[in-house]
């Protein structure tokens, strides 16, 4: 039980350590343009990488001494002990469709899909109602922004109707 809990914490501190090392590596390989003067573009990144590595080591120490982070409380009911990976994956998956669809299929379809998916993951049971709300929401946002506020949004494959 306890060791399982530490796993996630260690992964977090580990990612931070890797981040610091990546910055260190990138800075050491940096192409410094000639004439950058005595105080070039490398000093600050070196300081930042040192800081991040130092903090990650501190975190490791804290974790091994049993000092774990407390997950943030939410406004939306109790925090559960175990992550609900199914809902989490559905929400993440819905978000992932957006960059794939926005330019290929256009704003209205991309937004409808992401909206529908997140609502479904959050437990919207009535599929038809969800679908109707998703499409109406996307249409309202699209026309308000592209026609009302002149913010360019990709019309995509629905562009032929305009």
């Amino acid at each position, binding site marked *: 039980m306890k060791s399982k809990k530490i796993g996630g*914490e260690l992964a*977090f501190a580990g*990612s*931070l350590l890797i*981040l*610091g090392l990546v*910055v260190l590596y*990138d800075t050491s390989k*940096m*192409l*410094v*343009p000639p004439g*950058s003067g*005595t*105080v*070039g*573009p490398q*000093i*600050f*990144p070196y300081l*930042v990488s040192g*800081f*991040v590595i130092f*903090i*990650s080591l501190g*975190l490791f120490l*804290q974790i091994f001494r049993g000092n774990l*982070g*407390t*997950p*943030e409380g*939410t*406004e*939306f*009911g*109790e925090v*559960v002990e175990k*992550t*609900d*990976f199914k809902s*989490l994956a*559905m*929400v993440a998956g819905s*978000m992932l469709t957006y*960059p794939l669809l926005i330019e290929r299929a256009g704003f209205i379809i991309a*937004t409808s899909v*992401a*909206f529908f998916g*997140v*609502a479904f993951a*959050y*437990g*919207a049971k009535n599929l038809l109602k*969800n679908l109707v709300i*998703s499409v109406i*929401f996307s249409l309202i946002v699209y026309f308000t*922004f592209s026609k009302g506020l002149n*913010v*360019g*949004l990709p019309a995509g494959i629905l562009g032929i109707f305009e």
Partner: protein
Amino acid sequence: MNSFNSLMEGFASALTLNNLLFGLLGTILGTLVGVLPGIGPALAIALLLPITYSVSPASALIMFAAIYYGAMYGGSTTSILLNTPGESGSVITALEGHQMAKRGRAGSALATAAIGSFIAGTIATLILAFTAPSLAEWAFKVTAADFFALMLIAFTTVGTLLGNSMLRGMASLGVGLVIGLVGSDLQSGAVRLTFGSLQAIDGIETVTVIVSLFALGEALYIAGRAKATGWSIIPMKGKAIMTRQDLKRSWRPWLRGTAIGFPLGVIPAGGSEVPTFLSYAAEKSLSKNKDEFGKGAIEGVAGPEAANNANAAGALVPLLALGLPTSATAAVILVALQTYNIQPGPLLFTTNPEIVWTLIASLFIGNTLLLLLNLPLVRVWAKLLNIPRPYLFSGITAFALMGAYVANNAIFDLWIALGVGVIGFAFRRFGVPITPLIIGLILGPMAELQMRRSLQISGGEFSALYATSMSKILYVILFLVIIGPLVWNFKKKLALKK
């Protein structure tokens, strides 16, 4: 006297019918978004920022000020009726205001919060108008080394005062500093951390990071970690008005809250958590009806709400005069001003005085519009709380993704947004505060600039960083800020052992 004249000129340029309409629209939108549970003022402003892009600078400023006040007030409505503080500054309001609502006094709680915020905001903006110019003048004498030391203090206070672990606050700051490094270095043109991507050379869009961190991170976190329990909304009965008795009990807390909130906003004290808490403690100890506290004492809403608003206005002093943001909301404001091509800092008051004064006048106007609009419409806002949870999060997600895309019309930004969303999830999961990341992202590049400027003058001699007497004093303060909490914790541990 000089400030007074400039302020009047600011009013003259801000007060046109067209601008007032934009202000009205900003108030409505700001409150609308601020009321939604899960959206604090920083996120509300960041989400609404794209709307202000298409209007003229003066109108954008007034609309922006209105959004800002609307979002702040929307947040307190949610705390009172739903017991869900949208941000740390509203925790106390939720505590005491929700109890009042439960006892059927929601109207009085909302009214004392609105009027208190208005009074605190007005007084604080007045002080801002008269102190910021002299601070900016003084800041001319501040050297690059002093600025660097000041930024280190801002980093440390934001990193240590938020959340319950200093190390985790610092981890958040570090990630922000790294994200701030990405792109080409403005001074030398060297390319950093882009890994061959051409789009990353321009750096990472700050607004995208802020929006994704809050909105996408929250949507992921709630989906994965919160039990789907419903919330209880207290129905709003009657009007939001105060009785004579309420007023008598509220006016002193309003003024005391302002007095506590403003100075703590000026110094980097890590946001509105400390001042609202101090105000609550002060009201409790001064009150004759101590037993009412915790069960719905109006003083416990009036004081902290005033402190929260005065604190936010106080944070504008270092922001405008020094270009130094000290809270997440102030950081978003800095980004907004930069998109209108306004660079806050000592130079602003001499190069663009008309813009500063238009902004300050806009703050007064936004605050007034809010009071006029909100008290009568409070029941409409309360209705928004009935939006079902699935659609609330769908809407937040959709707007966040759209915001990330429209900033540059680039899919690249969307991938960044999703990555940052995952960071937001991980931070919440492991109890890491989010604000230090934002401060690091925005202040990091500025700190680097000041450090290199100082070192360039000295020819690379590091002692130049602590050569002036001011920087020496600042480093002593920095030392105390780091050591203070450690000593405090150590003492607590000792006391526990006994």
